[in-house]
């Protein structure tokens, strides 16, 4: 096999232009194939990483939806007290989301304001300023960088917010002070996001009820972890839906993210078929041009298996060289494609569509090996069934 490989290499080197063009073609197709493999699981891997990074491992909402879309959870304080007694639960955070405008600014884009329990673990990472104090007056506001940039706010700046909570009348404006600038989980790159105490958000919307859109739970690993915490929540409040990070990822992989997986499967199939066809045509034309040479080699004593192995090695060299080059090129290409997809509105700033995994690399290599073998089948058949004497005679006559 080594001699067949060396022979195939010599034949390819004899036509460097052809080899280079073939390898460039395989590289381009291989890079696309590699990117489709990165895309097939990328969003899910990135989503899982972001969920795990958040520190909360169970999410509780009042509907079956995996996102905030249903009715709010009522009597939250009583529920938090009861959940606090569960040994499998380490901490619980409440989240109420409202919409608001900054007073005296055009309201073309509304802010998303989250009301949370400032004494519990918070779903953001503080970049500037100090952790907000729930007792402070005016209401302490933690804002994202985009909000700070858009409205020229810094730590200590006063802000007046007008709630847009769906009522025909609007409650009184809420006076607030910027306590910090933070990075929020699942924040879109262009989002205007802020957070304050749940009491301040209730005042912003004129709500009297003790409501939350979602509860974020940190489980206690020593008492069974997220599964035990979710089970305890379901047992205590059957009307609520508790989902662990694992269950959310599983649900998103089945429903919300399935489009990119399907798209990547279709494109992987098409790309592979296309690449296979092109390599087959290239090898077939090449073999057809060298039929006389191959017949002469056979006449000199090279076995059928040896010339077939030569064609297989030629295919392997084309695909191997192109496939290896496709990995870094595909990596660069994926950054460009990722930047395009991440410009979609509402995509979290730290979400990635293309994520490198060892599994993707292994599948890429396996598909290329299968491709090299399949692409060589027809040209191998051509050299295997070559009539030696007739071919040599035709060569001499022509």
């Amino acid at each position, binding site marked *: 096999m080594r001699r067949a490989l060396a022979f195939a290499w010599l034949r390819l080197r004899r036509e460097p232009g052809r080899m280079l063009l073939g390898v460039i073609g395989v590289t381009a197709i291989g890079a696309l194939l590699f990117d489709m493999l990165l895309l097939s699981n990328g969003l899910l891997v990135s989503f899982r990483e972001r969920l795990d990074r958040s520190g909360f491992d169970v999410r509780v909402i009042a*509907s079956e939806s995996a996102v905030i879309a249903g009715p709010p959870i009522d009597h939250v304080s009583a529920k938090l007290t009861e959940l606090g007694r569960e040994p499998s639960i380490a901490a619980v955070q409440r989240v109420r989301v409202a919409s608001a405008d900054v007073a005296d600014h055009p309201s073309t884009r509304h802010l998303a304001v989250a009301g949370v329990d400032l004494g519990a673990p918070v779903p953001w990472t503080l970049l500037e300023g100090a952790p907000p104090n729930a007792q402070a007056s005016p209401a302490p506001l933690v804002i994202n960088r985009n909000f700070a940039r858009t409205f020229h706010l810094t730590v200590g700046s006063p802000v007046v917010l007008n709630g847009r909570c769906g009522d025909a009348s609007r409650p009184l404006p809420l006076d607030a002070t910027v306590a910090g600038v933070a990075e929020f989980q699942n924040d879109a790159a262009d989002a205007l996001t802020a957070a304050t105490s749940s009491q301040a958000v209730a005042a912003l919307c004129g709500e009297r009820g003790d409501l939350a859109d979602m509860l974020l739970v940190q489980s206690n690993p020593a008492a069974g972890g997220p599964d035990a915490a979710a089970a305890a929540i379901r047992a205590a409040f059957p009307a609520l839906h508790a989902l662990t990070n694992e269950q959310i990822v599983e649900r998103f992989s089945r429903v919300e993210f399935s489009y990119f997986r399907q798209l990547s499967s279709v494109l992987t199939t098409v790309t592979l078929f296309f690449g296979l066809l092109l390599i087959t045509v290239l090898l077939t034309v090449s073999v057809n041009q060298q039929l006389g040479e191959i017949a002469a080699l056979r006449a000199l004593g090279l076995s059928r298996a040896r010339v077939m192995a030569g064609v297989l090695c030629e295919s392997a060299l084309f695909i191997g060289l192109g496939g290896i080059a496709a990995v870094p090129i595909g990596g660069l290409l994926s950054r460009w494609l990722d930047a395009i997809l991440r410009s979609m509105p509402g995509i979290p700033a730290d979400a990635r569509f293309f994520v490198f995994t060892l599994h993707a690399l292994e599948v890429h290599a396996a598909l290329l090996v299968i491709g090299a073998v399949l692409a060589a089948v027809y040209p191998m058949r051509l050299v295997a069934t070559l009539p030696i004497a007739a071919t040599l005679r035709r060569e001499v006559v022509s």
Partner: protein
Amino acid sequence: MRRTASFLAVVLLTWTALAAAPAPADVLVSRQLLEREHLAVGQTVELSSDAAGTAARPFRIVGVYEPTPDPMRFAQERLEVRVHLPDAAALEDRLPSSSLTSINVELRDREDAAGFASDVERRLPGLTAKSTAAPDERTSTFAVLDRFHLAIAMVTVFGSGAFLLALMVMLVDERRETVATLRLIGLTKQRLIAQVLVEGALIAVAGAAFGVLFARAAEPVFNRFFQWRYDTALVFVRVTPAIALRCVALAVPVGLAASAIAGWTILRRRALLTVGR
């Protein structure tokens, strides 16, 4: 919210005889829900706003509807029912019956939509009003997907262009001696280049036309697969004249460039050297 309230339903009991209870309210169910739960028109079902079936109410299925295909929600199962607004409010007993998620307004003069929306926002400061014709996130989402697909198409064209060039070089190389003989009997380089270009153009146009026809033939296959996969009436692939023209406009120049380069590689050699003299 659309014209009627719709929400995820929990179908609890079927074929229930409710002689003593008040007449069940009417409900429309989505085709997907009807098929999944093996329901039938005329059947009485009980609906509740939570999975535990608290305060379930009887409803009679009076019809089935196909949900309006929504590209933003195509991956979600459309397990929906539509009930009259008072019935929805009664089911959702957590919220005041006067609460609505949204109101759709049909204007007499559609041109006035933007003015009407700003008027509503001014008069009712807690509400957000938007014209349905205004550009929204959906437009930019699909514009981004369009750019993504174009980028993939460009990479594919680049890769296939390299292959095409390799093939053209090999094909022209095969005719090396013929080309040299034609040069020796007096045909100019320009004439031979033109011949190669015309040949390349014919191949490129034929290839592009075949590609468009193949895409047109594959269109129902793709659509049926994705419509089956996502149980939706959405159309995923549509080969429009504009897309076909864009495809030809991308492919033909690549074919022409490959022919020109291949022709140049053989014609730059001296004819006598090519025939071995």
